[in-house]
């Protein structure tokens, strides 16, 4: 047992310490100090994660559990507070702390206008966010995962509503939390089914007994867990919170969309891969929902004019691809896409943040244009991100997306066709975004143009690092097509997905078919890019969308639909319950009893006339009645 693995608790501990220092000392810390503490703790975690990762790369490394203390041990259910280190969690540790660190560094500059105590509060939340996410991926059982699961929900709430004076932002934060909670309920019920079936929540025990369990029960479990994933990873029907989550500061969006939070659902399913592999129905549901989300979000992204909203819908769409990958059994592909997506999406968001920073918090791309010259670093890195997400080789997005699509083709060619259509849309809207922002001429006010400037190094450095990663990360997963055994990631993650790989029948696509697929997709994507560039560089959209475009611009009116079928009826029910059941109904009955007693008293009071004669008369009558009773009944 190597010692560094035993120190895994340091990874979440550092951010926790950072959270406590920044949170408790927010009034006394200077901005630079809280920035250094905030970023430093994540760097420390990253270093430990690197060391751990290094351990896990060793041949024959097996999953190691590190017990911290007894958490819940009742009713025959033993849930220790324990961490599990294996290839999957180690990889996620790297992504979270690595990308997280860059975002922290970026934030020190991006948030510099904030007052010191708000600045410290911001870093406290960021650290807590990373802490929760680390708990989520490190847990050795579903309950620890759930702790992190709800924890990231909380942190997203705190960060989306960071500028709490604005009520709109507050609403967006609440929406995020509540939608996540809906998913969490599903997740929780899934946990109860697991407890009932396996008597444990510990991964190793659950997965060891998964084979041979009734498929129906596994289907229920996996579907319920998937409900949780739709909430956290913004899939249909619970995706609407993510675009609204743009209310938070831009680095937060980068953190939520790239390194933490939304990847939780992917991680959870990848972690429970054996359960899903054994429940084909759930797999199909996951794939279909993922695909539907990918397409739906892509169509919406085409017509958004807020730079962050476009990126937000692209996240939803990319997450859909990951779920498609999970659904067709391409677990490695999905995790691969999580990784590459973390790089290029963080890059895009931070780039967008740099643009917004330069534009003095203007986010409407219709008012941008021609920024390439003014913000060269941002421009080049953003372009790299766009190419990566569009899927042009040899940028990273190509490899991961292609891996998912090829597996989708093997599972069902229809998946592939729809998936490819989504990919074309992705290329289209990303380059629409690029063209409207960076090419053409500036469409904002003159004064603003005068102030345009490149961001400071704290912001450009992370951009450059992420751009490099977004370009080269794909080489970790070169398909077998090009070189045998070049898929390093698959090799690395193989132990985690071993059981699933053994069970699932391997879908094999002929190399010739694969070449054709690649050629088709690259050609179409390139065409799509050029069309977008051509169209939007010359004649950018400046007005409001019309016709069908208006439906897309209004996000298919899904928010309105939810509002009408859920929020309003619930509110109506509340009003009804308050007014009719509570006040008139139950309390009415209670008060009615009281009133009827009072009424009865008032009636009886009339007997008390005060006339001695009437009293005597009643008395005599009473005696007579008693007489009659005695004689007739009690004889």
């Amino acid at each position: 047992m190597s010692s560094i693995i035993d120190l895994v608790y340091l990874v979440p501990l550092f951010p926790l310490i950072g959270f406590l220092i920044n949170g408790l000392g927010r009034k006394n810390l200077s901005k630079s100090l809280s920035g250094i503490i905030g970023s430093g703790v994540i760097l420390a975690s990253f270093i430990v994660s690197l060391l751990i990762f290094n351990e896990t790369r060793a041949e024959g490394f097996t999953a190691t559990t590190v017990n911290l203390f007894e958490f819940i041990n009742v009713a025959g259910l033993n849930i220790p507070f324990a961490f599990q280190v294996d290839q999957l969690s180690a990889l996620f540790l790297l992504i979270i702390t690595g990308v997280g660190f860059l975002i922290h560094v970026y934030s020190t500059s991006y948030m510099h206008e904030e007052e010191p105590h708000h600045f410290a509060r911001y870093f406290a939340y960021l650290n807590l966010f990373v802490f929760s996410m680390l708990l989520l991926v490190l847990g050795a059982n579903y309950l620890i995962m759930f702790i992190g699961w709800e924890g990231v929900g909380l942190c997203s709430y705190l960060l989306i509503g960071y500028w709490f004076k604005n009520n709109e932002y507050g609403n967006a934060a609440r929406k995020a939390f509540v939608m996540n909670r809906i998913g969490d309920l599903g997740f929780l019920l899934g946990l109860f089914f697991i407890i009932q079936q396996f008597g444990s929540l510990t991964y190793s025990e659950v997965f060891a007994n998964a084979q041979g369990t009734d498929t129906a029960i596994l289907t229920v479990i996996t579907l319920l867990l998937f409900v949780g994933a739709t909430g956290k990873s913004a899939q249909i029907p619970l995706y609407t919170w993510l675009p609204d989550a743009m209310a938070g500061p831009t680095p937060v969006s980068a953190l939520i969309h790239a390194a933490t939070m939304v990847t939780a659902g992917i991680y959870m399913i990848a972690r429970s891969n054996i359960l899903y592999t054994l429940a084909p129905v759930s797999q199909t549901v996951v794939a279909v929902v993922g695909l539907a989300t990918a397409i739906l979000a892509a169509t919406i992204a085409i017509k958004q004019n807020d730079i962050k909203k476009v990126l937000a819908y692209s996240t939803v769409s990319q997450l859909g691809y990951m779920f498609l990958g999970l659904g067709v059994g391409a677990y490695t592909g999905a995790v691969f896409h999580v990784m590459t997506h973390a790089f290029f999406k963080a890059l895009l968001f931070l780039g967008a943040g740099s643009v917004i920073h330069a534009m003095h918090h203007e986010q409407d791309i219709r008012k941008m244009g021609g920024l390439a010259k003014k913000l060269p670093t941002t421009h080049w890195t953003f372009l790299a991100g766009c190419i990566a997400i569009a899927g042009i080789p040899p940028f990273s997005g190509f490899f991961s997306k292609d891996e998912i699509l090829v597996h989708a083709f093997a599972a069902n060619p229809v998946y592939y066709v729809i998936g490819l259509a989504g990919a074309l849309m992705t290329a289209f809207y990303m380059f629409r975004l690029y063209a409207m922002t960076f090419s053409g001429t500036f469409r904002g006010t003159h004064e603003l143009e005068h102030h345009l400037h490149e961001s400071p190094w704290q912001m450009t450095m992370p951009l450059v690092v992420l751009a490099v990663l977004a370009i080269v990360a794909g080489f970790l997963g070169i398909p077998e097509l090009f070189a045998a055994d070049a898929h390093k990631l698959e090799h690395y993650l193989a132990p985690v997905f071993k059981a699933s790989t053994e069970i699932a029948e391997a879908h094999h696509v002929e190399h010739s078919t694969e070449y054709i697929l690649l050629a088709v997709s690259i050609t179409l994507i390139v065409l799509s890019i050029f069309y977008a560039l051509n169209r939007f560089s010359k004649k950018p959209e400046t007005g409001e969308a019309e016709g069908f475009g208006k439906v897309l611009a209004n996000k298919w009116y899904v928010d309105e639909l939810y509002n009408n079928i859920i929020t309003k009826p619930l509110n109506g029910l509340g009003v009804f319950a308050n007014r009719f059941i509570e006040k008139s109904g139950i309390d009415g009955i209670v008060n009615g009893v009281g009133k009827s007693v009072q009424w009865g008293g008032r009636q009886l009071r009339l007997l008390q006339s005060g006339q001695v004669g009437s009293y005597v008369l009643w008395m005599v009558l009473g005696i007579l009645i008693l007489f009659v009773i005695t004689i007739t009944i009690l004889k």
Partner: protein
Amino acid sequence: MTALLLILVPLIGGLVTFFVKQESQAKLWSFVVSLVTLAAMSVNLLMHDEAGRSFTAEWLPMLGSSFALQMDGVSTLLCFLTALCYPIIFASTWKSSYASPNSFYGLMLLAQAGITGVFLAADGLLFYFFWELALIPVYFLCSKWGGEKRIAVTFKFFIYTFIGSLLMLVGLLYMYYQTADASFSMQSLYAVKLSGDQQSWLFWLFFIAFAVKMPVFPFHTWQPDTYEQSPTAVTMVLSALMVKMGLFAVIRWLLPLFPDAAVQYDNVVIGLSVIGMIYASILAMQQDDIKRLIAYSSIAHIGLMAAALFVNNESGLQGAMIQLFSHGVNVLGMWIVIELIERRFGTRKMSELGGLAQKAPGLTILLVIVALANVALPLTNAFIGEFLMFNGLFKFNVWYAAVGGLSIILSAIYTLRMIQKVFYGNENTLTAKGEDITWFEKASLAVIVVAIFVMGVYPKPVFELTTDTVTLILGVFK
């Protein structure tokens, strides 16, 4: 001996308070008395003084009733909760001033004696005695120091609980005549063998008394009104401690006395509780007065506990017991925040508040933590309880857990709505003049926050404490 001290100290201290005319002295004196009680309880816990947890003396031998006190696991927990809450209540309401403070604080301490007595009594008659003793001071506290509609509301409260108590008395007397040795002692009452029919109607006589106190839907309508109208210090006692009397009584008396009936009617009780959870949550979303909001939220949480007590499995029972404590701590924290808001801004209406986070960041942070405990976020104390209770409910019936689980979502909706309306947004003319809380108030809230996290992260000691009660109840059902 501790058991006796826990009752005697507040009782005598309370009687003495009546003669302390000066306000500051009355406050100080009652605070010291509550601290002494807490010290006695803490020493007992730290020393693991098992012997000190029971006490017997002759009381009414001709009736077969003795002054028997006994702490088992769950009553130790609740006695500690009572002892812990009182100093916090006094500390957090230090700045509030009440007319004739001597009787106010005296009655508060008398109520403490009564509540502790309920948690301790191991004799049927003594239990009834304390049950009423706890009610009477609270009645006077509400009706004398309450809000505008206090007379009507407290009268309703009194009638509700009193009818329940009378039903219980009838049941208790019937049980008394069934005992082999004409005794009210817990052992004799436990030993009574009852037929199925007898159990049925006795069960309902007792249950209604306890259900009113908890309260379980549809016996709850006294609660929001009473919470709203009472002075906040009394509301704290009511919701942090007195509602626990009902739940505790189910654990100590109802389940062991009538196990067959409890199994027979489990669906009715759990059904009502689950309906109550959802119903109260929906109503909580409609409230404008924060006190009423918390009142309904409390009903929802109590509903889950009531349901979990009847699921007849270890997970549910353990969850309910740890939640008894957690809920007391959390709801107390909520009331403290409300008290602070009301004292500063003179209103409890969410529509009139807003933007407090700018003026009172300290208060906001503490409230957010307490509110998160209220929605049972993991690593807060309430999560442990709710997780186990839902698990227990799930084992009993999947659908109850699924429907009841909706309250998890609803609680997030109304709690966050409250936070946003009160603390976020822009300040208005009313809230602009506010200021942050003082260190003294911070300290009392800090105790609660510490309790929230310590229990949320390391609940093991509590489980160890309550295991014996759980074993007892599960044993009865076998």
